[in-house]
């Protein structure tokens, strides 16, 4: 894709630090979130109410879990991107729905089954990208078609099965402090992602490979294995998202995951992870996911023509991108 790098010259002076903070994607995303909440409350009172925010966070959690995998793939560079996430979410949802079929006791097996299958699909993506060297965008696009087709074959077009009551409760009903369980799960995932990326050897390898694949190989890092694993993890997280989605909607349908494909990329990018790989993190993606969901719901509640909503959505994306996602100028 692009070989541009965001320039992040460290600035030791306090003034420089203030500038750096203002340019920090996370800060920007948080500011954008605050602005949208304020705007929403102003335009349609009730928008920023506590329980509404909790519901928005629930929706954001689904996107955020899916985007975690996307985040890893993008960080690992090599033009990494996973377009099969949407289809894998659908697949995970259908598999989970079939396995649990409304029975609480079968939730764990359903999760395991969904994750295992999607992990394998993800690994196939990784193998295609590393061993056969198909560009990720094409490999995962092809995988998307294969998974969608496989889903039609697997379910004969009629995905049966539905969510177990406990799972639906986990997603939709308050569990602790008025927050549904899924938010705690997301929090746990955030912690896991941050630890993985900041402290673990795998995280180090992901950044190193994203920054310079060749150099990473020369210091002995298992480049291919890591890349395959990262695609596998992306698949598994998509499968997990699928389980959550079926808990959210109650039953699965073939296209249930489609709406997550491009938003998962956008959440990562407006969260400050460079599509060139090697720089960024998950906290920004969390903020990006929240900002995106917030924007969508803000637009829903505005009394506008459809085209107007779409127009504002696209324009806001570009503005968010322009605020910090600019690439380096050739001449400095």
């Amino acid at each position, binding site marked *: 894709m692009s070989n541009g790098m965001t320039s992040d010259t460290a600035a030791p002076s306090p003034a420089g630090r203030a500038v750096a903070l203002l340019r920090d994607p996370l800060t920007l995303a948080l500011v954008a979130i605050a602005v949208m909440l304020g705007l929403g409350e102003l335009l349609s009172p*009730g928008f920023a109410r506590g329980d509404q925010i909790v519901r928005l966070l629930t929706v954001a959690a689904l996107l955020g879990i899916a985007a975690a995998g996307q985040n890893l793939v993008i960080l690992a560079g090599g033009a990494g991107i996973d377009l099969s996430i949407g289809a894998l979410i659908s697949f995970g949802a259908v598999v989970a729905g079939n396995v649990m079929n409304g029975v609480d006791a079968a939730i764990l097996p359903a999760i395991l089954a969904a994750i295992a299958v999607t992990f394998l699909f993800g690994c196939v993506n990784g193998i295609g990208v590393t061993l056969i060297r198909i560009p990720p965008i094409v490999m995962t696009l092809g995988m998307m078609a294969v998974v969608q087709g496989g889903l039609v074959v697997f379910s004969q*077009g*009629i995905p049966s099965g*539905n969510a177990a009551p406990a799972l639906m409760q986990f997603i939709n009903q308050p569990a602790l402090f008025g927050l549904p369980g899924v938010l705690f799960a997301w929090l746990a995932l955030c912690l896991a992602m941050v630890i993985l990326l900041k402290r673990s050897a795998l995280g180090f390898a992901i950044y190193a490979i994203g920054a310079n694949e060749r150099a990473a190989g020369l210091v002995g890092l298992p480049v291919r294995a890591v890349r395959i694993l990262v695609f596998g993890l992306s698949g598994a997280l998509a499968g997990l998202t699928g389980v959550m989605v079926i808990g959210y909607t109650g039953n699965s349908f073939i296209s249930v995951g489609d709406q997550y494909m491009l938003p998962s990329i956008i959440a990562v990018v407006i969260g400050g992870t460079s599509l060139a790989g090697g720089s960024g993190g998950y906290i920004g993606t969390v903020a990006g996911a929240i900002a995106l969901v917030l924007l969508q719901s803000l637009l*829903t509640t505005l009394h506008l023509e459809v085209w107007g909503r779409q127009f504002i959505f696209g324009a806001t994306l570009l503005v968010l991108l322009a605020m910090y996602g600019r690439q380096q100028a050739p001449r400095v």
Partner: protein
Amino acid sequence: DTFKIGLSNGWVGSEWRTQMIEEAQAAAAAWADAGTTVEVVVQSANVDAQGQIGQVRNFVNQGVDAIIINANSPTAFNPIFAQAKAKGILVIATDAEVSSKDAIYVGIDHKEWAMQSAKWLAETLHGKGNIVAINGVAGHPANEMRVAGYKEVFADYPDIKVLNEANANWDQAQGQQVMQNLLATYPDLQGVWVQDGMAAGAWRAIMAAGKKNDIAATGEIRKDFMTVWNDEGLTSGASVNPPGVMASALNVAVLKLQGKEFKDGIFGGTYGNAIYLPIPFVSNENLTEKLAEAEGKPGYWSVTATLSPEDASAFFK
């Protein structure tokens, strides 16, 4: 006699479509009892209008006797249908109306479909209250006809206020999300007019907000939704767009291929080429009866209705 009929479907995202194709295949097989072999070939994939034109071209090039299509666009097929007709191929659209004068439409009137449920909602609310509407894909013909339908009805009820209209693209999860947002912004809501494919999601949001007894909303004709509807005692009503429309179209097609002539003046609709099928309605009154019909069927099963060959022959001379 042996007839070869092509079935074209441009979207595989819902069970309703699958049921539609399966019922059509079953109807074709049933003709064997009457001594007529009906061979069907199916093309079903996620394609845009242009991709679906490709499907039709393949049928034309292959030389089928008739094409039955659930078209992705009302107008984009005019030239290719003209070509098909020129080659003596019978073209019948179903589920989504097409403007071509070279095709006929056998299916429900989507405007009427929307008007029925809108009327039900208005009357359930005694002609008074705040409502919101949740629609499918903006710009999609079926969606636009439905929107026109409910607008016309609500215009007759001055005390019914449509506070907002949103699109959730015929996706349950989006329907649920949109409903959540609308519930948050409009605390004083009495009614929701929502299309099928999203209504179950919207109802889930309504139930999660603890408002299932305060709000009346349109529903779905899927068995699993009707079960919830019944168990939770919801106030709902649903116009039925039966998946059997394609089977009905197929039965009409076979009769036509057998050489029968349509009666005069049976075509109507916006484009003057439509045979509208009756639109059943599910409400709290007949819900138990419909659930009984669904006994033994899987959860995704939709209330259906098919025009039998005997019923269909009423359209012919």
